[in-house]
C-alpha cells in the first residue's frame, strides 16, 4: 500500500518547461510514475518531455483535463509560493515543493492558506517522496531504494539516501521514503507522517531522521509514545554543531537548550524511540529492532 503516492497517483509537474523541472519530470516518468502533464503559465497547449505529456496554463486545467491529483513543484523561489497556493486552490490532493530559497514570511502565509484547503503539502526545500517500485515524486535517486516495509521520514536529502542505502545493505526495503525538508516552515511534520506510517499495513518499522533546531522531533516523540506501536528508530544530526550557528538548512540553528541534539535524543529515548548514536548504524539498528 505505502503512503502518499503509489502507481495510481496522477502526477503533474509545475515548472515542467524549466531545466530542473523537465529533467526531474523525465526521471519520475522513467521511474515508472504516472506523470500526466505539466503546468507553466503562458505555455498551455504545448507539450513537454519530447511530446510525451501536455502542458497546461494552470493547475485547475490540469486537474480537469487529465485528472491530476499530485503536483511536484520546481518553480523558482520568487513564484513558488504562488504555485503552491494555486495547486491547493485547484484541489490537488498532494503538493510536493522541491524549490529551495522561498522567503520564510511567504511560507508562513502559504502554510496558513494550504491548511484551509484539503491539500496535503510536503516541503519546500526537500527531496520529495519515493514509494519504491511504484512512484517517485521528487529528486531522490530511485535506484538506491528497494521495495519493502520500512517507512523513512527525514529532514535531510543526502542523509536520507545514506539511511536508505544502509537499509538496503541490511536487506531491508522501504514502503515509502519522505523528505520533509529542513526549513523553519514546512508543510508536513514528522508527527503527521508517523501517524500515516502507523496506519499503513505495509509498514513494519519507521526511521525518523531529524536535526538540531526546532521542536518537531520532540512533538513526534511525544506522539509516538502514546500512539505508535511499530518500532521507531531515530537519528539526530548536528551533535557537534556549535550553538547559534546556521548549518545550511535554515532550520538547523541551535538557539535554545531544547533544540540541541542531546536534548532531543534524551526525550526521544524517554518516549521509547530507539536512538541511533552513530549515523553509520541506522541500517543495523533497524535490522535488530525488527529481529
Amino acid at each position, binding site marked *: 500500500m505505502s503512503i502518499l503516492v503509489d502507481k495510481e497517483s496522477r502526477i503533474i509537474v509545475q515548472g515542467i518547461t524549466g531545466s530542473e523541472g523537465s529533467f526531474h519530470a523525465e526521471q519520475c516518468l522513467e521511474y515508472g510514475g504516472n506523470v500526466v502533464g505539466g503546468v507553466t503559465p503562458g505555455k498551455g497547449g504545448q507539450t513537454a518531455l519530447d511530446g510525451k505529456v501536455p502542458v497546461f496554463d494552470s493547475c485547475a486545467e490540469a486537474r480537469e483535463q487529465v485528472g491530476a491529483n499530485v503536483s511536484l513543484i520546481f518553480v523558482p523561489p520568487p513564484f513558488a509560493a504562488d504555485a503552491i497556493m494555486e495547486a491547493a486552490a485547484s484541489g490537488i490532493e498532494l503538493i510536493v515543493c522541491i524549490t529551495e530559497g522561498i522567503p520564510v514570511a*511567504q511560507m508562513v502565509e502559504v502554510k496558513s*492558506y494550504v491548511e484551509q484547503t484539503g491539500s496535503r503539502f510536503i516541503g519546500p526545500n526537500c527531496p520529495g517522496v519515493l514509494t519504491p517500485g511504484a512512484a517517485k515524486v521528487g529528486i531522490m*535517486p530511485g535506484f*538506491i531504494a528497494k521495495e519493502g516495509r520500512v517507512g523513512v521520514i527525514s529532514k*535531510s536529502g543526502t542523509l536520507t539516501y545514506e539511511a536508505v542505502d544502509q537499509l538496503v545493505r541490511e536487506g531491508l526495503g522501504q514502503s515509502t521514503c519522505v523528505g520533509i525538508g529542513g526549513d523553519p*516552515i514546512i508543510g508536513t511534520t514528522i508527527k503527521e507522517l508517523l501517524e500515516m506510517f502507523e496506519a499503513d499495513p505495509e509498514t513494519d518499522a519507521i526511521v525518523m531522521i531529524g536535526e538540531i533546531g526546532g*521542536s518537531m522531533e520532540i512533538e513526534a516523540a511525544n506522539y509516538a509514545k502514546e500512539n505508535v506501536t511499530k518500532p521507531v528508530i531515530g537519528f539526530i544530526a548536528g551533535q557537534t554543531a556549535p550553538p547559534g550557528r546556521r*548549518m*545550511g538548512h535554515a532550520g538547523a540553528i541551535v538557539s535554545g537548550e531544547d533544540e540541541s541534539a542531546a536534548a532531543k535524543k534524551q526525550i526521544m529515548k524517554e518516549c521509547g524511540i530507539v536512538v541511533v548514536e552513530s*549515523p553509520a548504524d541506522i541500517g543495523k539498528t533497524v535490522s535488530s529492532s525488527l529481529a
Partner: protein
Amino acid sequence: MKIHEFQAKELLKRYAIPIQDGITIDKLEQAEAALDQVQADLGAEQFVIKAQIHAGGRGKGGGVKFCSDRASAFDKINEILGMTLITHQTGDDGRLVKKVMVAEALDIAQEFYVAITLDRSSGKDIFMVSSEGGMEIEEVAKKAPEKIVREAVTPGLGLLGFQGRRLAKALGLEGKQARQAASMFQKFYTLYREIDASIVEINPLVVTEQGSLVALDAKMNFDSNALYLHPDVVEMRDLDEEDPAEVEADKYNLNYIKLDGEVGCMVNGAGLAMATMDIIKQVGGSPANFLDVGGGANVETVKNGFRIILSDKNVKAVLINIFGGIVRCDRIANGIIEAVKELDLNVPVVVRLAGTNAEVAKELLSNSGVSIISADHFEDAAHKVVAVAKGE
C-alpha cells in the same frame, strides 16, 4: 544576515518609530564633529558611546559608556574605537570595534523588552513583550517566564489593534502612553514583515522621564532567502563582522562554517554534512568545519571547497563524503583529481563516494596516481581520516 544597531535604528526611523539617535563614526578625527552635531541637532548635553559590533552583551563587555560631559565622551570614543570587545557572544577572541555610535543620553524612567520572531511549531510570528527590559531575555525566560507576554500574529493580517493594546496593558502602560505603545507595536510588526526580518528585538524600549516611548537599542536579523527583495538591506552587510573564509565560500555558493578541529570536511547536503561532523567526533577526531557543497557539485566547487578548507591552518586531513543522487560521483572524482594535482596538497585526503556511478569514480581515483585514501563506507571513512589527522 545581521546588521548593526545604528543601521537597525535607521530602519526604525523609516517607520516613524522614535529612537535614541546619534551619529556613527569610524575614525577618532570625526569625534568632535559628531559631538557637535549630536549637541546641536538633538540638544544633548550628555552622551552614550556605543560600540557597533554584531554581538550582544556589549554593555557588560565595556562597549557602551555613559558620559556626563563632552570631554569624557571624547575620551570614551577614543577608548572604545579600536578596542577588542569580548562579550558572551563573541567568543574568547573578541571583536575589534571599528565603528562607534555617539548617541544622545536619555533620562530613563522604565525599560521594556520587545521582540518579534517566528515560532516554528505554530508556524506563526510571535510578538513578545516583557516588563523586565534591559536584562537578558534568556534569564527572564528561565527565572520569571510569566513576565514574558506573547501575542501570535495571524498570517496575512498583521498585529491587530487589540493585540497591540493587550501588549501595552501587559506592560502596565495607561492612557496616552498605552495608545502610543499599541500603535508602535503595530509599526514594529509592519516593519518586521515588510523587510523580511527573522528577528526584530528592541531591548530596551524605554519610557523617558518626559514620558515618551523610545527604542534605545535595536537588533535585527534577516531571512537570507528574502534578501533578493531588499537590496537596501543587503547594502548594510558588514563583511568585517564575518569570518573571511565564510565570506569567500559565499562567493562560490558554498555553505561553510569554520570550527576549531583538525579534520576538514567536504560533503554534499547539510544533513549529511552535520552527520559527518558527528561521526568524526564519535571516532575521536574533531571537525575543522562544516561545508555543504550542495546538489550541483562539480570540478569547480570541489576545487573551491579545497581552497577554503585549506585556508584554515589547523586542518591536518580532509574527508570528502559524497552521496551522489543527482550528482554523479565520477564527476566529483574528476574534480578531486584535478584539485589535488593543481593545489599541491600537503595534507592527506580520505574520499568516500557512494551512489550514482560510485564504482566508476573509485576506479578513476585509483588509476589517477594521485595520493588519496579511499574509504568504503561512512564509518570506515571517519576512522581513516581521524587516524591520518593524528599522524597514525
